């Protein structure tokens, strides 16, 4: 492999990885606080992409406004899902909430298939985002810069919220010890609602970025990215926001390099991601950056 090919692959890997990172943050936030594998998170990507699609093409809104509305709407859907499907189960075993998440994911997908039809639609991409730029002879699409930039901004913002605001402290308290936090006067319900709102808004941004980078949307578009980004979150250390970003980048790089160096096994690319997942769970369940979570007896 020539160096220029390698750099080109690396640029694409960073581009894909940053997208994984963006979505993985949302997973990790919900998991960190509720210890819930939110399968429905993946489908929120789809909800956001369709909301933006209809905003632009049906309601003829400017792109920026429909994106904003889509984010708000998705955050609302996320909060609603938490309130209706997860909150009643908060005192049940954790697995029950996960089953509910699987059910909600099923419901969103089937609803999407009826409302939007299964036919993939073309997502409107503003002209300048579709173009690409030359950097030292390597072509990088403009959307890559946007994704990296957005991921960085959101990461900083999130770190600020988690570490410097009162709500953030409450979130971390909940993540560490649910019952004690409750006893200390943390308003559990509103903190969790806020977590879901933020997590779902992140999913919305992720979904719209996904649709901008890969401009075909369909009701099942969230499934694969959902699994991949979840793997990225586990790899980075689930519950850890910085870990999710690093995990996303590394997964993106690993996937692209696997195909680049071993093209004959390209059919096993997804299996490779799952092998990373299993290896992480077995040998370093806390992931790259995760803290050790004591098993409560």
């Amino acid at each position, binding site marked *: *492999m*020539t160096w220029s*090919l390698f750099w*080109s*692959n690396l640029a*694409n*890997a960073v*581009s*894909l990885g940053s997208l994984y990172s963006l979505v993985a943050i949302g997973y990790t936030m919900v998991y960190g606080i509720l210890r819930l594998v939110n399968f429905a998170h993946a489908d929120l990507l789809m909800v956001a992409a369709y909301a933006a699609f209809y905003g632009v093409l049906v309601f003829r809104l400017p792109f920026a406004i429909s994106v904003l509305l889509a984010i708000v709407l998705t955050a609302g859907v996320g909060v609603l899902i938490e309130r209706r499907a997860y909150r009643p189960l908060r005192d049940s075993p954790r697995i029950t909430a996960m089953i509910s998440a699987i059910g909600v994911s099923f419901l969103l997908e*089937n609803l999407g*298939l*009826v409302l939007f*039809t*299964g*036919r*993939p*639609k*073309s*997502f409107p991409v503003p002209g300048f985002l*579709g*173009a*690409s730029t030359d950097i030292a002879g390597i*072509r990088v*699409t403009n959307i890559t810069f946007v994704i990296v930039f957005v991921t960085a901004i959101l990461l900083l913002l999130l770190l600020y919220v988690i570490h410097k605001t009162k709500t953030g402290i409450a979130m971390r308290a909940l993540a560490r010890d649910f019952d004690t936090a409750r006893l200390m006067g943390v308003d559990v319900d509103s903190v969790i609602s806020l977590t879901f709102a933020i997590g779902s808004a992140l999913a919305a941004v992720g979904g719209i970025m*996904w649709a901008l*980078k*890969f*401009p*075909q949307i*369909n*009701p*099942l578009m969230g*499934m*694969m*990215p959902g699994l991949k980004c979840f793997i990225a979150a586990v790899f980075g250390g689930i519950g850890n926001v910085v870990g999710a970003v690093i995990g996303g980048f590394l997964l993106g790089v690993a*996937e*692209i*390099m*696997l*195909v*680049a160096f071993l*093209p004959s096994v*390209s*059919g096993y*690319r*997804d299996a490779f991601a799952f092998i990373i997942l299993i290896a992480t769970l077995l040998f370093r369940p806390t992931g790259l950056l995760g803290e050790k979570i004591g098993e409560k007896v």
Partner: protein
Amino acid sequence: MLKRTFGFGIAVLLVLAMLSGCGQKEAKEIRIGVFEPMTGSSAAGGQMTWEGIQLANELYPEVLGKKVVLYLEDNKTDKNEAANAVTRLIEQKKVVAIIGSYGSGLSMAAGPIVMKNKIPTVGCSPTNPLVTVDNPYYFRVCFIDPFQGKVMAKYAYNDLNARTAVIIRDVQDPYAVGLAQYFKEAFIALTGKTDSILAELEYNTGDQDFTAQLNTAAGKKPDVIFAPGAYGDAAIMIRQARQMKINCPFLGGDTWEAPEFIQIGGEAVEGAALSTHYSAQAPGTEAAKTFVEAYRKKYNKEPNAFAALGFDAYCLILDAINRAGKAEPQAIRDAIAATKNFKGVTGTITLDENGDANKSAVILQVKDGKFVYLTTVEPD
């Protein structure tokens, strides 16, 4: 409260179910069943086909002076559901013929059931050769993969002067895997060199990043890249290729033929060529013109190959019923099997001894944001 609402909902459903059961007993109608994936991962294909079938039913609602009634069953892109749907159509709806299904696997699940019950079934777009093998009751209005693969290989070799090619396919999609294999065989036969296929690269349904495959492909410097697969994936792949300044021509199959292919791909798909079933611009297809006009009027969008094939499957069955003179499954089967030079939207259809359509393919190319007719390729 919620429990009560829930219970009430179920009661309403039950009542509706009973009422709907009563409404169906109408004499003097000919029942045709349709099983297509309306939900699940292949929902897109099933929904497109169903649009075409409905349109055909609206244009030609009667045969032998009787009303033709369609019964649609969703097969959920699931083999079990496909088998259930077909059994239900046969046992409960008493259909005399069946149309379906998008997805060769789903059609194969229905195969033994229609054969056992001796109900003629016409597939719209299952292109896998196995669908009709050893099954005298299964037919199809599309050509099969071996022919389509050959068509594109010839086009690449003769018209594009290609001597080397790279294949990128969806390893999960039987259509893509099959078609790629036939393209490979035909292309190797034409060039006479086994190494004329420089690489066979794969991805999985749902993958959207093809940059690594494209970089590898570009590194081999092929004359063409053959990438059969879903139109959305292919359009995104070509987009990524053009963004990476890979200017190699892309070739594909009939799944590409949807307006969204051009919408998603934009300028990137300019010049991409594909083989498909029909073109409104091709000479001498009156049926195609009727179809395209009616489709635009009813759905307010451009038609695609699957709708056209659905339309043809319906018309073919109607034609067979007409020729048989009665709406009995066995008579319809024999009439379908004897189909010769049926003028459909997607071309002139003659069914061979396997029940496969022996018909021409057309090659289209994207030019100025439109599919432009290049040439018609006749079967051998």
